[in-house]
């Protein structure tokens, strides 16, 4: 099985270009974030807090406050402010639009890079850590695009997704980079396509969940400080001012995990079936198997916690952070430092 060097080179070029385009997208997202939601989101959230309280109190005591009645009265600002806000919003919209276009362009280049690599080596293009990371980044960006198609309001959060994706791709292109090469016999199996594809999809989706969870925790912290009259002053919490409502972020985190978890479950089982064919047992507590199991159990705990009294919300969210940390540990530390049967890393 020969490697097509020309195509392999083309794939590398597309990969580098994709990083550059993602970088431009990141800058545009930052622009949208800075100009757009700043004023509006912050103000409406500050206004809505008391209103929400009103409605809640009203509901309990039996009355019905017409929704939005409070908002209108509080919101009457000066005309100039409205005009300024409108022009900022227009600017932000333009930034956001170009960010989305750039992200799409980057995704096309990125997918091209992965596909061309596959053609160059004549196999599924995720046989080592470089290829795996690249594919995970691709899934994460695609998952984010799906999220903003369904919830266009959160588009401006793109910078929080692009940042870790670019970091991952940078690591992939430098530390983890592996030249296009054929695979050792143990990896030449259709199970590679099934098992690793599932792992990649789940990991990419969990990455988006992770971002949403972190933002949720920040926003939640911000809200609870504001609620008791403290003005948050320190860095990550101050971000809360411009983030969507905690409930929205929490729902994004939950739904992505609810989608990723069965995929991860399937991936582990496919791995077990492959192990049965390759190593003589479907489960043997190899370090990588063990860590996949740990991640699985932790995400199962997360889903459980959401249905357990006293564990909903912040506590459940922290559990899902543990889940993603264990995924990262499995990928970087176990692959590189703990030796097992998985002849996957391809670093030498």
């Amino acid at each position, binding site marked *: 099985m020969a490697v097509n060097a020309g195509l392999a080179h083309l794939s590398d070029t597309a990969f580098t270009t994709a990083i550059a385009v993602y970088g431009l997208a990141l800058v545009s997202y930052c622009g949208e974030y800075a100009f757009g939601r700043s004023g509006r989101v912050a103000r409406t959230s500050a206004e809505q807090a008391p209103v929400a309280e009103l409605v809640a109190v009203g509901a*309990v005591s039996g009355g019905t406050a017409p929704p939005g009645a409070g908002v209108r009265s509080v919101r009457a600002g000066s005309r100039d402010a409205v005009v300024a806000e409108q022009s900022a919003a227009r600017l932000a919209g333009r930034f956001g639009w170009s960010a989305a276009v750039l992200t799409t362009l980057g995704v096309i280049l990125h997918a091209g890079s992965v596909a061309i690599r596959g053609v160059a080596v004549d196999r599924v293009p995720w046989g080592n850590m470089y290829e795996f990371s690249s594919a995970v980044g691709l899934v994460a960006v695609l998952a984010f695009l799906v999220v903003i198609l369904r919830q266009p309001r959160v588009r401006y959060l793109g910078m929080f997704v692009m940042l870790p994706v670019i970091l991952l791709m940078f690591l992939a292109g430098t530390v983890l980079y592996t030249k296009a*090469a054929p695979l050792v016999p143990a990896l030449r199996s259709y199970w590679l396509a099934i098992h690793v594809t599932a792992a990649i999809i789940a990991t990419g989706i969990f990455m988006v969940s992770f971002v949403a969870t972190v933002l949720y925790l920040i926003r939640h912290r911000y809200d609870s400080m504001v609620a008791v009259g403290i003005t948050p002053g320190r860095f990550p919490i101050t971000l809360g001012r411009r983030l969507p409502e905690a409930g929205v972020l929490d729902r994004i985190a939950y739904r992505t995990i*609810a989608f990723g978890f069965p995929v991860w479950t399937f991936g582990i089982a496919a791995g077990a079936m492959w192990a049965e064919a390759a190593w*003589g047992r479907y489960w043997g507590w190899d370090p990588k198997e063990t860590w996949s*199991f740990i991640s699985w*159990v932790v995400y199962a705990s997360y889903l459980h916690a959401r249905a357990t009294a006293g564990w909903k*919300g912040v506590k459940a969210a922290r559990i899902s952070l543990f889940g993603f940390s264990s995924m990262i540990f499995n990928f970087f530390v176990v692959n590189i430092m703990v030796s*097992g049967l998985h002849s996957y890393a391809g670093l030498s």
Partner: protein
Amino acid sequence: MPVTGPGRAPAADPAGGALSTQPVERPPRPGRGPLTAARNGWRLLTSMRTALVLLFLLALAAVPGSLLPQSGLNPAKVAAYRRSHPALAPILERLGFFEVFASPWFAAIYLLLFISLIGCIVPRVRLHGRALRRPPPAAPRHLDRLRHSERFHTALPAGEVVDQARAVLRGWRVAHREEASGAVTLSAERGYLRETGNIVFHVALSVLLAGVAIGKLWGYQGSVLVEEGRGFCNTVQSFDQFSAGPIIRGAGLTPFCVDLATFRATYDPDGTPSDFAATIRYTPADGTPRDDVLQVNHPLRLQGVRVYLISHGFSPRFTITTAAGQTFRGISAPFLPQDGNLTSEGAVKLPDARPDQLAIDGLFAPTAVDSGDGVISSGSPQPFNPAVAIFLYRGQLGLDTGRAQSVYSLDQGQIAAGALKKVGAKNLHPGEALVLADGTSVRFDGYLQWASMQVSRDPGQSVVLVAFGFLLVGLTLSLSIRRRRVWLRVSEAPGADGGGAGRSVVEVGGLARSEAGGFTREFGQLVERLRQSRKD
């Protein structure tokens, strides 16, 4: 705090709790006596909170099993760890940290979880069965207090609104009730499959665990190293290593024999291995021999038993002549690979040589590279330039001392005691010989290849596979379907009595498990369709 926690149902939500069969956390009963204590203990064990804690403990307990060497996986590494951490290792050993997945505390966690799981499933199945038979619950008094609610007037008389609503609610389970005030309510519910899926998931999980246990109790595994031209039968005696569940203990293994005809490793031009293949002939119980090729990822499956190709290596072959004129032809011994290029080490023992026993301590390299001082190692796993470096020993092998000896090395005790003496050393290519002054000679004739094979049987495996199928289906249903309820209250509009316009007031309320999303949209569409109903 004004912030409503995410995913938390609003406080005034009378009918919401029943949307899942999630166990209600009940406070422990007051009172004494063993029965109350047992009941409270059981309640604690089967609570969601305990399940959560146990799940978390399970994840935590698995961590040392992946970071410390495990004797089940790699005893050599455990030994090395013991040597490098003499103070810590005995403590870890006593706590079972070198055998985490067989340790009592790991077992305790998963057994408790298993019991909790079953104790949790049984009442949920009962509750869900009841929910499936019962009509959806009556409408709460204040539909406007539900998270989703809507109220509108229509020109239709109440009866007609109800008929049309029934048509809109096709696919929902609907109950029709009349209230004392004369208002008609419809209670509609949908998404029962969520709970069904969730129960299927948890039941499948416990069946899967049972399947794992069956494999552990009734399964076995043996491994054996076979040179080309030789074979083995599936009996405990023929394996180099054998482990079995407590119920099998080596009796009643499926009878069959396997002979290794040839082993071939093929490589890409750049030296990457591309295929390992062992051509075998096996004889199952019926006595008719059949041929097959074992490959990585392609075991032989035979009557519930699987035979795997695990690894491979070389066995150098020698012709040895003693000083007394005895000649031993075709003497070979498997050498164990020490690196990726199959630099291999091993020993040849000739207990029958006279007057003294002979032995070779050797190193084989398929592609010998001489580092200049006569020390060879291998530069490639392919046999481009096979050579062997031998040390010839004479004396007593010590096989009769009662001490167990490895077949891959000489007894260092005998050498240290001077009972086994080095009498010669040489690097040989095929056809070359080491000849001593007394006429003793060792000729290197070439090599055979060997393959190590593993025989496994796991009778729980198919249980695990089927259970997993159900588990995945159940999980997907449980996570993708939302259970939701919609109530309609249709009453005559106040003041419409005498007018005869038949104007009705329709109140609609909706409630969903907040987890799965999209209900807001569904509710909106439903209300829209209800509103659009009109006389045709």
